[in-house]
């Protein structure tokens, strides 16, 4: 591309970005989502410091008690403070959400891009492999990962990332495939630009929209998946907690100790709610007229 055309292309990109940002800000639900998410994240980071309670200390004789002055959200069966546990659990859940999504992105993006770009045989083989992995029992995979990779909480996000990258790859592949047929790609190829550069400069920036949207929507999906893992007993280990662990335990006692469910579930749901609406807002903003 000539210098002039490059500059005007950059200018276009900037104004498109600004355009998208304006649209996003005008979206009422996305705004609400954004505010909610920021508030919750801040609470999770700072909240536990504000409280005098800890998340791990048990008080067996005290047991499960409803909210009180000492324990703003009440206590669980071992007398642990739910306010602090919910917020520290939030750190884990949100952290795992971002981390796993990141893992899914770094694996899925290049994989999908390569598959979609080279198309033909390569694409077929690569995507068949993805199809095969899709069908594998998730339970076994997580069991294996937990056994081989040791006991840290970070392996949870590895396990989840190992599953989510498949859908990410599919999305990226679809986008790349559609774009590679464009005329200026052929022109670049004829000009002798390397494949990598084409991918980096022309294809990926144009896929950015759907990729950003999908990434944002993967985070709540991961948080949800972590809670399902907790249901299976494969989640985060005590005394650490995550929202998944808390709402699993709370759901069993919904009729006798409702506060054990209500507070973590509220945080959990509002976070998912917020992230989903931010994602939807991004989709509306970045891709208002295109079809999926």
């Amino acid at each position, binding site marked *: 591309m000539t210098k002039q055309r490059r500059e005007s292309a950059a200018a276009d990109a900037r104004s498109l970005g600004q355009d998208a940002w304006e649209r996003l800000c005008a979206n009422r*639900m996305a705004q609400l989502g954004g505010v909610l998410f920021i508030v919750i994240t801040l609470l999770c980071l700072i909240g536990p410091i504000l409280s005098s309670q800890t998340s791990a200390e048990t008080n067996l004789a005290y047991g499960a008690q409803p909210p009180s002055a000492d324990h703003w959200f009440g206590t669980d069966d071992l007398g642990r403070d739910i306010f602090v546990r919910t917020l520290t659990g939030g750190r884990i859940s949100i952290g795992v959400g971002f981390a796993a999504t990141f893992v899914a992105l770094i694996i899925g993006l290049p994989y999908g891009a390569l598959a979609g770009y080279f198309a033909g045989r390569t694409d077929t083989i690569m995507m068949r492999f993805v199809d095969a992995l899709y069908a594998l029992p998730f339970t*076994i995979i997580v069991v294996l990962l937990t056994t081989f990779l040791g006991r840290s909480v970070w392996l949870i996000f590895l396990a989840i990332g190992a599953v989510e990258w498949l859908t990410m790859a599919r999305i990226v592949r679809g986008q790349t495939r559609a774009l590679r047929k464009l005329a200026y790609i052929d022109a670049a190829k004829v000009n002798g630009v390397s494949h990598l550069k084409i991918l980096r400069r022309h294809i990926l920036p144009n896929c950015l929209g759907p990729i950003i949207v999908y990434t944002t929507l993967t985070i709540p999906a991961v948080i949800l998946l972590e809670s399902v893992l907790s249901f299976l007993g494969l989640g985060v280990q005590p005394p650490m907690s995550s929202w998944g662990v808390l709402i699993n335990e709370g759901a069993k006692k*919904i009729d006798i100790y409702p506060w054990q469910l209500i507070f973590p579930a509220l945080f959990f749901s509002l976070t998912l*709610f917020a992230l989903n609406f931010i994602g939807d807002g991004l989709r509306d903003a970045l891709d208002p007229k295109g079809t999926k």
Partner: protein
Amino acid sequence: MLTHIARRFLQAIPTLWLIATLTFLLLYLAPGGPFDEEKPVAPEIKEQIEAHYGLNLPLHQQYFRFMGNLLHGELGPSYKYAGWNVDEIIRQSFPVSLELGGFALLIALVIGIPIGVFAALRHGRLSESFLMSFAMIGICLPAFVLGPLLLLVFSSALSWFNPLGWSVASDRVLPALTLGLFYAAYIARLSRSGMLDVIQQDYIRTARAKGLTESRIVNIHALRTALYPVVAYLGPAIAGLISGSFVVETIFFIPGLGQFFVNSAFNRDYTLVMGTVLFYAVLILLFNLLVDLLQMWMNPRTRND
């Protein structure tokens, strides 16, 4: 069309082979075996048990044996449930999962599509936000929270439904709701965005200019194209509904295949894991094919390949 179908069938074979092989490897690598018990068994006894099931053979021999059986269509006996064959188990429990999935899908469509369409038609107004927020309940509350919640209200408090089981017709309602609301949320979103895309299209403006009534526009022109992404989503949705029913089946005590799918992995019931994985794989491939065909029928322009 026929060549496409034939090609998909042919492509399915290596995929299924890959799935079988990968699953086999995963099971081989997983610690613990089907016959490990709390009170451990004398090594000689363990040898006998393993010999019975061919588990003491070297890896490649086990693999060929297993592959050979598969090619003959034999899924083998369950290792955990003595006396039961894998295909027997699948035959007994799949219809239940299918019914559950079917009702859940029905609920997802019946709730999701109208919400999404109405929200799109009220784009920019407060009612759109309310509608979409309501739809989000399914995504924001996982099944193991939604289920007990619904049970608390409709079963414990109001006594309208049994707390579990699959015997009476009304037993279908709460589980299907629990399972379906999640997909209802996605379908609502897709319907809304699909509808929004379509409404702003030129040909809709033309139809309006021609003076067609609003409902005709919605029903005939817009809806068909708007539901296109919903149809595309049906493939993964159906797969998810049928294989992801584990949580709902556990909470509501439903004898479906989902429980076997997950528990067989925990039990290291090698044959049952393999059988359910392959069964689901075939189903998913089949449903994806059907959905693709449906899409092609709805919009001939998407026929690529």
